[in-house]
């Protein structure tokens, strides 16, 4: 068991972080807003952690203090939240695909900025980010509770007044408006909650990946997170979590398959070099054959009934 965790520490932590990022996309989607801005806030959070920890390194040769990681996460969340309000107020007047495009533009603008600014290390980025844990599996102690907390948060959110306002906006913005729910206020809130989560995950990821550069917050990432949500199922918070976990593990599972003995060499080679081809095909197949995603509200309620 111990060796399993050591071998797959990187993968497990990546999966958990991906599930959290998927949730960061799900939060605005709860209020009916398709935002692809998460990678922008993720990148911002990562840069905050990377800059703070490399400019002010911890004394001695010890591990990076945990409280500083937590402080960075807090700061990353705050900064992302402020930026989200500033961007969200004008941008969330847009609907559907227009909002998605505006958030893509936002991510790209941040990316070009980070490629060119001195503080972000330009195209090279920032590396040698100090490690608060001696093994990669150690990050699960931060990433795991963050995911669980976010899931609990979302679960509770769906059951309180604010969450009901989100869902009402998703179902019918005009009717929600007529029921006393301010569309702007709650859309910006949902967008900001997602941004804060993405920023916090970014701060962890910067340490986890040891290096941070402009490739972290890209359009590709936007679309991957969207795939997590839509393949997992966008109607419950369980869907994005499952989507993030499964789709992150998938390329590694395919890689593991290449080691299976008795496989023809050409197939082995294809599984190794072409596993992203299979990944893409699975995303396309998922979208076409499971339009509701893997996890649907009906499925969850059926599971609940199965339990005594």
């Amino acid at each position: 068991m111990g060796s399993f965790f050591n071998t797959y520490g990187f993968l497990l932590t990546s999966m958990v972080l991906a599930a959290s990022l998927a949730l960061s996309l799900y939060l605005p989607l709860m209020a009916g807003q398709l935002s692809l801005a998460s990678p922008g806030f993720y990148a911002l959070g990562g840069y905050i952690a990377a800059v703070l920890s490399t400019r002010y390194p911890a004394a001695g040769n010890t591990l990076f203090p945990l409280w500083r990681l937590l402080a960075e996460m807090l700061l990353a969340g705050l900064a992302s939240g402020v930026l989200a309000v500033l961007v969200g107020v004008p941008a969330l007047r847009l609907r559907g695909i227009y909002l998605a495009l505006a958030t893509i533009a936002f991510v790209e603008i941040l990316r070009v900025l980070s490629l060119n600014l001195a503080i972000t290390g330009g195209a090279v980025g920032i590396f040698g980010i100090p490690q608060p844990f001696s093994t990669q599996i150690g990050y699960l102690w931060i990433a795991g509770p963050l995911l669980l907390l976010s899931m609990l948060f979302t679960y509770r959110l769906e059951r309180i007044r604010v969450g009901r306002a989100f869902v009402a906006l998703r179902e019918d913005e005009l009717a929600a408006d007529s029921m006393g729910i301010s569309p702007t206020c709650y859309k910006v809130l949902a967008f900001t909650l997602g941004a804060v989560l993405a920023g916090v995950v970014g701060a962890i990821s910067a340490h986890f990946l040891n290096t941070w550069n402009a490739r972290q917050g890209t359009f590709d990432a936007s679309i991957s997170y969207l795939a997590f949500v839509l393949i997992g199922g966008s109607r419950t918070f369980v869907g994005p979590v499952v989507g993030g976990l499964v789709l992150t593990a998938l390329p590694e599972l395919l890689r593991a398959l290449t080691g299976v003995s008795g496989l023809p060499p050409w197939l082995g080679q294809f599984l190794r070099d072409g596993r992203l081809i299979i990944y893409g095909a699975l995303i396309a197949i998922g979208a076409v054959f499971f339009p509701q995603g893997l996890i649907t509200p009906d499925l969850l309620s059926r599971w609940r009934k199965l339990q005594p």
Partner: protein
Amino acid sequence: MTAPSPVAAPDIVLEARGMTRRFGGLVAVDNVSFGVQRGELFGLIGPNGAGKTTLFNLITGLTPPSAGTLLHRGQVVTGLRPHRIAARGIARTFQNIRLFGELSALQNVMIAQHTQGRAGMFASLVAAPAARREERDLRERAMALLELVGLAGRANAKARNFAYGDQRRLEIARALALQPDLLLLDEPAAGMNPNEKATLTDFIRSIRAQFGLTILLIEHHVPLVMGLCDRVAVLDFGHLIALGDPAQVQNNPAVIEAYLGE
């Protein structure tokens, strides 16, 4: 925005002054003025395309007026966003039912209690005692409203699976959840059989009494309006062509003309 107006009488709940709305070259509502008194059941009738629903949209803020002033309890509310109008106590139903279809009946009603919630987001998230109490109160009140419209037994069923008449009643329950003083009903009897219409008439009277409501209602079915309303306004091509008690309006030549000419 909400400066008090010296002119409006205190018992006028809603007053429209020269309300006008143009869409391109078309004048959907043209210089319409009227006042609705507290506790009144006020009917709005007219042929198709007369501008009745547009007038509702002007009152509830969904469509901004091109000209005119709207007063609610003596305060100018023209140009307020729909949620501000709703928060002031003007609730409505929609002609082409706009329930939150994927959500349960109970959720539909509880969403409309939005403005009554006081507990903060954090307190609600951690289910602090006060927040939990509030949530329970809101739920009980929502259930009572469902009971009132006879849907309590199906509180957890999805709204879109309800029969047409049930959906109309659920919309009324949802509007009542706003605790309004003015209720706008857009063709509440549409698609109902004579039996259901009679029940609905009684129901509207009873909620007016129970909640002390002022009700403004659009209806296509003239006999229902005539039997139910205290006063009736008639719109034709965006103009207000008659206003008075049902008997007066019924014998008004302009009204007869408008309906025969349809």
